[in-house]
């Protein structure tokens, strides 16, 4: 994993700072959160009328982004209306949500309802 090394370095650095000053450690903790979110690519590609990966596991608070690679518009709609639905995404358009409470969320494309996907949100 390409992200492991910088992340490990940052954690090591944070630990060092933390030993020096607790208040700085708190700030460092926040930075670490931001770092882990941006380094993990919760990307779902829409291609050939399918969500890929079909099931994705993310941590609460992380962002999930869909990108449409088809020449056909698609949508992202929560089956149980648990998160805001996207507008119709044209080619190369993206849609992003932030994962909320832990649980399993199913969604589909309201234009092509055969297309379904699942987001598993962990703590």
């Amino acid at each position: 994993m390409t992200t492991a090394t910088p992340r490990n370095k940052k954690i090591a650095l944070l630990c060092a700072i933390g030993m020096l000053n607790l208040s700085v450690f708190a700030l460092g903790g926040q930075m670490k959160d931001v770092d882990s979110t941006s380094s993990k690519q919760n990307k779902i590609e829409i291609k050939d009328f399918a969500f890929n990966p079909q099931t994705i596991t993310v941590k609460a608070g992380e962002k999930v982004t869909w990108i449409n690679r088809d020449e056909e518009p698609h949508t992202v709609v929560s089956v149980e209306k648990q998160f805001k639905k996207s507008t119709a995404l044209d080619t190369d358009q993206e849609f992003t949500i932030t994962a909320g409470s832990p649980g399993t969320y199913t969604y589909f494309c309201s234009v092509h309802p055969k297309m379904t996907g699942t987001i598993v949100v962990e703590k």
Partner: protein
Amino acid sequence: MSDYISHDHEHDGIDRRGFLQCMAWAGTGLLWTISGGVLASKTLAEIAKAGNPLPATDLSFLQISDSHIGFNKEANKDVTATFKIALDRINAMPTPPSFLIHTGDITQLSKPEEFDTFDQVLKSCRTKDVFYVPGEHDVLNDGGKLYRERYLKSVEGKGSGWYSFNKNGVHFIGLVNVLDLQAGGLGQLGDEQLEWLEADVKGLGADTPIVAFAHIPLWAVYPQWGWGTSDSERALGYLKRFGSVTVLNGHIHQVLQKVEGNVTFHTAMSTAFPQPAPGTAPSPGPMKVPAEQLRSMLGLTSVQYKQGKTALAVVDSNLS
């Protein structure tokens, strides 16, 4: 008659290779004629080239479908131009059709400017009466509000926009099967529309010719690609007592047909771009053909139903 017939093993005027070539094109117009309650269709090119006026019929109308105004990808970078060609063919007909039926996907992305372009181009058509049903591309973000405001002016739209009307003794039913779709499912009519349909046809004599039209096929063309309507069986149950039922659909951008008892199912080509035959590609997305081929593949596919024959004849001809 057809520029494509090079092999005709069956001596039926149908060349399989030519047929497949034509299948890969976009842009169509079929002229449907109803005579004595029997519905048949001819290509516009066939009629225009022959220069013959239509045989005297009770009624003629034309189905056009899937114009996808706003689409600008590789499969056809100028769908407005091919839509215009289709309209030119209609205008060139010696006897203009009484009206048009557009079986949906007027636009690519339901944008007001796309609807505007369609309406503007359509003004060049000599035939002014047009009856619509929406495609999923026409109702993308607003549940079909804009579509209904624009395209249901001449009919009494019920619910999400379904309606019926009578012309020359033929009962036409425009159905909506692209809204409130369920996860994992297909096209859907819904209980409210089905109850309306049952009541709508209740008082009609069994000898009334029925033409039902909707965007997504009302038969299971290829459910793996969503090419079907989950509750179409129930709808057809209300129609099966009639002696002549014709179901016209779009959505799949190619001609397919099926005859089941008194019911003839038919899907039309698009005026925008072709889609692959069921199961022949990873997905049903727009099918790209070489640019130089696209123009030569512009053409029409017609289906003829002759009285006393159960089989339908398919005749292809290009537009050039």
